[in-house]
């Protein structure tokens, strides 16, 4: 390559490194907030998961109508976050080919439409820029409820394990019928007229979505930080390599010119 070509290449890599480095810094600063949001939504969810654990509520093994809610986000450049969720959702669809799918986030929508376009019934976007709020989750839950009754609802999300690890996991969300059929529900004294199972099932869906979004957000931010850290490192390596190549080529050019000049001068003698 000529000297000029190497120079432009080197410049563009330096620019890319600046961008990836900035994205890494932005992700790092958001990390704290994302983790706080996740911790409080986890605590919030424990309130009703304690109840379901005591009542031994379970989702029915065989369900006629299954709904899978796949939670990810709109933005890429964060490693395998979105494809992991897509993979897990596809695995679920292998077991229940007739299940309906609701996608939250553009990335997962694109991936699901490619392979299972007939299953996708509803999709949301515009979430996941900031830490999710209860308001967003309840709006989404409201829209999902308009789709009708499902015997079994599962929320797929990326569980935040640590700063460097996440794993696709599932939150069950219980229908009013499966709450009523819980084997240990008789331990509780419920007021008959208040329709507690219905309201509980609604709040648990909202809760599951909120918690899934918060976990997914934290996983995404940390995955993006790691991805950008790696990208910056790779760019740094390439910058080193190209700097050396650039200097060598420059020296070679100078040497060539010197040879030309000296040969020219000596031919005059």
């Amino acid at each position, binding site marked *: 390559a000529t000297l000029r070509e190497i120079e432009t290449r080197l410049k563009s890599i330096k620019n890319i490194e600046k961008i990836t480095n900035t994205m890494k810094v932005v992700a790092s600063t958001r990390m704290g907030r994302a983790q706080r949001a996740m911790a409080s939504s986890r605590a919030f969810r424990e309130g*009703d998961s304690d*109840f379901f654990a005591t009542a031994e509520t379970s989702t029915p093994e065989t369900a006629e109508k299954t709904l899978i809610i796949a939670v990810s986000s709109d933005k890429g450049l964060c490693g395998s976050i979105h494809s992991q969720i897509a993979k897990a959702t596809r695995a679920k669809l292998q077991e229940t080919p007739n299940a309906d799918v609701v996608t939250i986030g553009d990335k997962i929508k694109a991936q699901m439409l490619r392979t299972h376009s007939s299953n996708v019934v509803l999709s949301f976007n515009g979430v996941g820029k900031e830490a999710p709020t209860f308001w967003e989750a309840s709006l989404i839950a409201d829209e999902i409820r308009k789709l009708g009754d499902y015997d079994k609802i599962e929320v797929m999300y990326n569980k935040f394990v640590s700063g460097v690890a996440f794993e696709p996991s599932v939150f069950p969300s219980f229908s009013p019928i499966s709450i009523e059929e819980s084997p240990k529900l008789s331990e*509780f*004294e419920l007021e008959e007229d*208040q329709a507690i199972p219905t*309201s509980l099932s609604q709040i648990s869906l909202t809760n599951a979505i909120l918690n899934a979004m918060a976990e997914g957000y934290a996983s995404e931010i940390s995955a993006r930080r790691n991805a950008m850290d790696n990208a910056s490192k790779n760019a740094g390596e390439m910058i080193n390599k190209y700097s050396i190549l650039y200097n060598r080529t420059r020296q070679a050019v100078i040497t060539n010119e010197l040879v030309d000049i000296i040969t020219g001068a000596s031919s005059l003698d």
Partner: protein
Amino acid sequence: AEAVNPDVLKVSLVAPHQAIFTNKEVSQVNLPASSGEMGVLANHVPTVEELAPGVVEVIESSGTASKYFVSGGFASILPGSKLSISTVEAHPLDAFSSENIKSLLAEAQKNASSADETVAAEAAIEIEVLEALQAAVH
């Protein structure tokens, strides 16, 4: 499972944005259940109650009481004297200003007679919450 002492009531009060109490040991909790005010002591029978907008009063074993206004939610009383309250919003009572409540209430009452059904329904909910809040602050 951890060893539980059923004679002490353990309360968790959590909102989506923050956990106010987590497994705090207290002597009594008063709840604004939608079926009426209820007091919860240790060894209460397990149940689930829907909460109306109102005040959750937590009385610690030392006798000091702290009051929180909640916008509705659920209280589940689990075996082993464990009470978990999940609500959408929860704030200490003294964080509210009565002037603000008054002006918001006036606005909501104006909207309640709106021709738009959604606006009217939203205003009706606002009035319910604000009236409960006003009664609690005074």
